[in-house]
């Protein structure tokens, strides 16, 4: 692996782990409930898969918590703004905890029909 590529891999991993270290301990079960009740699933799907016209993937492997929270509070473009008045910090942390539980993508072999 080249030195440049090594940095490209390591730096984001470090940022993610440091960001995750700052996450308040969240309740993933409540997070899933809130994720559905405040309508995240409408644009991003029930497991954060996203959809091209409505919203990007947000899970698995969600972005660092600080960036995630900043986007939720002050979203660009058409995403509804989730201010503290409509979504508490506690619930936001729980949503993030739920997104962390989303399993990784399946092995492409399990979806071999996509090659047809």
């Amino acid at each position, binding site marked *: 692996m080249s030195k440049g590529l090594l940095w490209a891999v390591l730096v984001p991993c470090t940022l993610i782990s440091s960001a995750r270290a700052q996450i308040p301990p969240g309740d993933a079960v409540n997070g899933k409930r809130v994720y559905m009740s405040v*309508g995240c699933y409408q644009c991003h799907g029930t497991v954060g*898969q996203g*959809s091209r*016209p*409505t919203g990007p993937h947000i899970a698995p492997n969600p972005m660092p918590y600080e960036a995630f929270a900043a986007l939720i509070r002050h979203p660009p473009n058409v995403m*509804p703004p989730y201010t503290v008045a409509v979504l508490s910090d506690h619930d936001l942390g729980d949503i993030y905890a739920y997104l962390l539980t989303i399993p990784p993508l*399946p092995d*492409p072999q399990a*979806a071999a029909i996509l090659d047809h």
Partner: protein
Amino acid sequence: MSRRGRDSDLSRRHLLKGATAAGVAVVGSMRETKAHAQPHTAGPITPPPNRAMESGHPPEQPIVQGSSGSDYMADVIKSLGIEHVACNPGTSFRGLHESLINYLKIDWHTCLHEEASVAMANGYAKIEGRPLLVLAHGTVGLQHASMALYNAWCDRSPVYMMVGNTVDATKRSPGGEWVHSVQDAAAMVRDYVKWDDLPGSLTHFGGSAVCVYNIAMTPPMAPVLLVLDSEMQDGPVPPNQKLVIPRLPKIAPLIGDPGAVTEAAELLVNAANPVIVADRCARSQAGINHLVELAETLQCAVVDLGGRLNFPSRHVLNQSDRARAVVSQADVIVGLELENFWGTTHTFHDNIERYADTNIKPGTKLVSIGAAHLYVKANYQDFQRFTDIDLVVPADAQATLPYLIETVQRLIPADRTAAMIARGEKLAAAHRQAVKVLKEDALYAWDTSPIATSRLSAELWEAIRNEDWSLGSLSSNNRPQWPQRLWDMKKHYHHTGPAGGGGIGYGAPAAAGAALANRKHGRLTVTIQADGDLMYSPGILWTCAHSRLPVLYVMHNNRAYHQEMMGLQRMANRRERGVDRTHIGCTLDDPFIDYATVAKGLGVASFGPITDPKDLGPVLKKAVDIVKRGEPALVDVVSQGR
């Protein structure tokens, strides 16, 4: 027209007049009876014999007719090559109805709503390239059909419609015929039909019927409407009328001005990054083949916006998944039947303060070739926002393409060939990378319930990919466009785009119309059917069963009007009220609609609701087998929102 027997002075209207008079006599007689009965105690009354009813028809009134105006109408309709009728019955066109089924014996498709009749005609025309006939009442029927006509208008689709009306007030039966009569029936839809007429005689009808057909079929194609007087249909052919069937001319679409075509070609061959954006360009396989030839000659990017299938989905020059990237790098953009040019070159931000950014570089040359420039109406705003375009060629794009190709081939400088090949190789590499990303995107939520729309599309593709298939319609909300991205689309009938006007209720009947067109070619018709769309005209499922239309409806059952709910969420959070009540008015739950049961009740084989993605493939295979036997089927798939 064949004259079956000598014309008689007998007429059905006189029969009706007699019946009405008899009815009045009955009422009068019953009133007398009631008056006589008043002194008696309450209880059932047996009216005395009614001589007016029992005497039947007055001897001086005719009871049969030897010729019929509507037989001539049927002959004219036959001369247009029209093979099918889609119709919900109505007495204002009973004369023509009778002539078409008994005299012409045309293939008839009973619809349960006029909106379904028109949408079915729209779906048929976009596959077959010519219209079927829609019949309806001039008032209530046309009112029902109105939205579907608007969809067809925006979609540049040749819907051919006739409606009945009783013009002469003295010939209207009291009550129902008055509320079903109108001074100017076409007025309510005149903003979104290309032409209409109210023939005053059968000869006038003959000319108008051919004339409106030509108008509908001349690009820009559009719906047309004829209003037929019921008396003219029902009664005999008036004496001394020399009826002839007018000739149907061959229609040559308008080709772009040679000078303008040369100017467009010069821009294309001298551009570093030319991009072609096509929307409703290809109305047949020739249109797709021409666009492939042009793109391969130039080795340029093509963006297919999907109003029709304009370009093969798996062609390496297809850059539709990278539309914004290629448009932003373009120095020349040629739009082919691209009405939303402004939307292609701008990004619009629907924020509290709405604004837009341009997507293109300063100095990018824009060329628009399209028939829509030839015919514009003012009221409805489907013509889209004005764009600063360098060269407008008001002409049919498909018909102009061969001339553009020839000119481009002639003008390509020899020293540009290598650069063009290199450009094509870069685009091919970008296409392959986009496919790789696409397949990874499709893996997200692969095993999830509700079932991912990517999984739904992939499983359906697996079930049909070895057949001669047609995606009969696209619902307006099919925004992830998985079929266009995952499936190998290369035939013009592989898909024909969504509802032109975005009016819900198009998808299900349009798929039925597509199935009617595809049936004689032995093609399998499928559609991914939005749940909200189906509930506008679920009766079309009965039409499919009744008419034995081989079509597979795969429900995209997300149990909501999702787009509207997302819009509400933005409003609610903008106002800091939270989204916990935005389901109100948008969800289709409590109770969930059981589409398999709905379909079963309407005579369509059905499966589901399917909630486990592992069950989907085997069920789709069973359903496809039913459709291949010539019957409709429905699979209810509980799916993700988008």
